[in-house]
């Protein structure tokens, strides 16, 4: 598993500069993939011990989560027909697209869509050296604007309406995050503090707007503290499953597109180059003629675009309204932090980490866990939180693991003289 030992005889003229560089590069490459996997496995292992301590069988529990997340769908292969989206034609397909596990998988992917976007919101800022704790607030602001646009303009062309709502939500998220970016760029105000404050502002603004008697409270139900419903034309089309049973909506493709866009911006544009340079070394970036302040602002604003879109796809894809209690119970922006950390702030990593957290979140939903596994259904949700927390804990630890690994690797890599 560790790097091949390169043994230098003590008389080697040069203590292996080339191989040291090679080892380091290899360490970075493998560490980038291996460490998060180990992190996640460790978290699930310790989570299993917790389950064991509560008197349940961890294997049953994890099997229950796996199935509850709909992941069993993939190996339930048979001969089935599938309807092509937006038509009546059907073609042969190895999987049954309308089984119960298919419905579970749709829910997992709906959650994945949002987590990818909130995860990218944290990851992008991170690449610029900023810790965006404000994904939650930016998500809220995006959701509010999506609701407002989506519940207004009834009768507008559907594609236009959806586009308008998503774009407005993205810009709103960008503006909200941009406030923290401008504060950081001009006064040096720490983004952790300012984004947390902005989270609360967004939170209470939402409670006011959609709460009892608020300006955007439901027109038809004056006693229900919730928003107006998104009109039909502004709802994201469902392409898999029953639209009435919360099928999988087209927002998933937006999440895919966001992952690709993230990768391209970071790796293939001058903007991404600047963001990474500032993230690695603000001093060197400034020396190279790059405006650090400008990049702080842009990185936050782009982060806000992702989070704002997360709010939009949730509102336009399956929630269709936002209520007092929705705002109070939402934490999807914070889960985005865990997604970004586990995904090591790369596009591929965020995509995979979002899948882990989406499956975990959906698989532990009380309705998905068979009653014989847990006596008390709430335990399942608690397990989900426990594992999330463990992942975060071990992400901190994986730096230690990598460090120890590197140290022992180096020891192996060095030829000790025989004591004789």
């Amino acid at each position, binding site marked *: 598993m560790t790097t091949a030992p390169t043994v*230098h005889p003590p008389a080697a003229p040069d*203590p292996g500069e080339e191989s*040291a*560089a090679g080892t380091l*590069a290899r360490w970075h490459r493998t560490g980038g993939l291996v460490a998060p996997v180990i992190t996640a496995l460790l978290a699930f292992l310790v989570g299993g011990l917790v389950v064991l301590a509560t008197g349940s069988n961890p294997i049953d529990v994890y099997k229950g989560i796996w199935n509850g997340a709909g992941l069993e769908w993939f190996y339930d292969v048979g001969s089935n027909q599938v309807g092509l989206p937006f038509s009546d034609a059907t073609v042969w397909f190895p999987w049954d697209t309308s089984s119960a596990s298919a419905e579970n998988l749709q829910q997992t992917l709906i959650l994945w869509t949002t987590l990818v976007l909130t995860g990218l919101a944290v990851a992008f800022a991170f690449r610029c050296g900023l810790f965006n704790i404000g994904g939650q607030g930016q998500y809220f602001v995006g959701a509010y604007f999506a609701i407002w646009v989506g519940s207004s303009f009834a009768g507008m062309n559907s594609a236009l309406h959806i586009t308008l709502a998503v774009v407005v939500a993205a810009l709103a998220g960008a503006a909200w995050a941009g406030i923290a970016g401008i504060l950081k760029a001009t006064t040096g105000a720490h983004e952790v503090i300012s984004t947390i404050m902005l989270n609360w502002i967004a939170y209470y603004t939402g409670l006011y707007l959609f709460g009892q008697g608020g300006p955007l409270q439901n027109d038809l139900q004056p006693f229900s503290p919730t928003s107006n419903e998104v009109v039909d034309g502004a709802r994201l089309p469902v392409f898999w499953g029953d639209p009435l049973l919360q099928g999988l909506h087209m927002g998933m493709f937006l999440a895919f597109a966001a992952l690709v866009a993230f990768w391209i911006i970071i790796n293939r544009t*001058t903007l991404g180059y600047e963001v990474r340079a500032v993230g690695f070394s603000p001093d*060197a970036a400034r*020396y190279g003629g790059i405006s650090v302040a400008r990049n702080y602002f842009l990185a936050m604003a782009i982060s806000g675009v992702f989070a704002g879109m997360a709010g939009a796809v949730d509102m336009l894809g399956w929630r269709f309204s936002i209520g007092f209690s929705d705002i109070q119970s939402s934490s999807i922006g914070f889960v985005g932090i865990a997604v970004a950390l586990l995904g090591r702030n790369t596009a591929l990593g965020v995509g995979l980490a979002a899948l882990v957290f989406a499956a975990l979140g959906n698989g532990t939903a009380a309705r998905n866990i068979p009653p014989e596994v847990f006596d008390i259904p709430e335990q399942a949700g608690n397990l989900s939180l426990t594992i999330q927390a463990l992942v975060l804990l071990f992400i901190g630890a994986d730096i230690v693991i990598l460090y120890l690994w590197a140290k022992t690797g180096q020891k192996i890599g060095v030829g000790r003289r025989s004591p004789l």
Partner: protein
Amino acid sequence: MSESPVVLEMKGITKQFPGVLANDDVDFDLRHGEVHALLGENGAGKSTLMSVLYGLYHQDEGEIVVHGERVRMDSPKDAIGRGIGMVHQHFMLIPVMTVAENIVLAEEPTRAGVFLDLAAARRSVEETARRFNFAIDPEARIENISVGQQQRVEILKALYRKADILILDEPTAVLTPQEAKELFAILRGLVADGMSIIFISHKLNEVLEIADRITVLRRGKKIETLPAAGATEAGLASLMVGREVLLRVEKGPAQPGEPLLEVDELGVLDDRELPAVRGVTFQVRSGEIVGIAGVDGNGQTELVEALTGLRGVESGRFSVAGRDVTHAGTHRILDAGLGHIPEDRHRRGLVLDFTLAENIALHDFDRAPNSRFGWLRPGRLVARARELLAEFDVRGGGPETLAKSLSGGNQQKVVVAREVGNDPKVLVAAQPTRGLDVGAIEFVHRRLVEERDQGRAVLLVSLELEEVLSLSDRILVMYEGELVAEFGPEVTEEECGIAMLGGGQEEASAA
């Protein structure tokens, strides 16, 4: 010199660190009343060997014999107990305490076992100072005395603890030439008194001046021990590096053309908003190297930062190739044709987590052919890096290697490659050889002269007076934020050194 008795012997010392064999079967001995220099490049294993002797590390193999007795050094306390004292490169003094308090630290004289007897401390420090003929005030606070005096306090500390073997780790690195001369006089006095001194250095001239014998280390191995009498700088350099080295920079006379960097009454503030550069005026013309000499902290850093847009200009103006760029910011200053080799390559010169290709594009990633309409073209970056890395002989990695995995010398070559590769009109080199070994220094020096000969205006700012003197066609001396003297290339170190301490008679603000 007659064969004095050997007071210290290290036999077959081997010390292994992860990835590096720092000392490989090194033999070393020290005779009574001699100065024995330990010479080698950075990373040759000098400091490791002395740390083993001083008990900071324990050797994997080999033995240490002090005064004929085989000893084991587990801590500096053991070493001190055997009469070994060490003066580190970075002084271990407490700034707010007095000289006497620092010297008696950890061995304070007490009254009735518990009460500090400061009067006794002062007396015994005075006595030690008198015995070894040191001019120092025991009551002075460390923070109020000069670096040279602080070093003397460190030496006194060792003497107070009855050391008869003294290790000095690169003692002249922090001193002006005058202070170094005074140190040498002190060392000669100590040796005459029967002390034995180990003098660690990588500077050839001072080793030849002070040492009786010289041991050369290279890559952890002892290469040779030879008497200083009869040794030459060139001979020592090739022993250190393992090949022939050009010590003196070979260069023809300068052929200055039109002024490319014009600085007019420039004033710059430091981080505490106090004036650091006070109305400095000078020009650098195409085809000449202008060196700025000065003791650290006299405004050189702020001057360079202002010229490169990293620090705001308070008053005055400057222009690059005829364009006024006083308040233009880094990006436009670089565009105007300025290249900058920064004094801290780790903090500024390189993005350590970037690849070499990305680092080389640091100024021009946003211009064709590296990018077009905001789209980066990594293939172009790599191709360009491959060319420059070959031209500048960067070893230890290719375009896709991370900058942090290169050695210091190769990292600096990458910086030089980028700055010169952009074909600047003005090249500002701040401490371009700091921390580099002889081979890499030779490379950088040769390259600076080549760039001069290609018609660039080179501004060299360095704390190494020797470097300034050997490279520059004109030398400006900076003292307390002002240019206090200008010299031609024939100036001696002494003249220049006096001006660096503010003793210049000619108040020349150079043309």
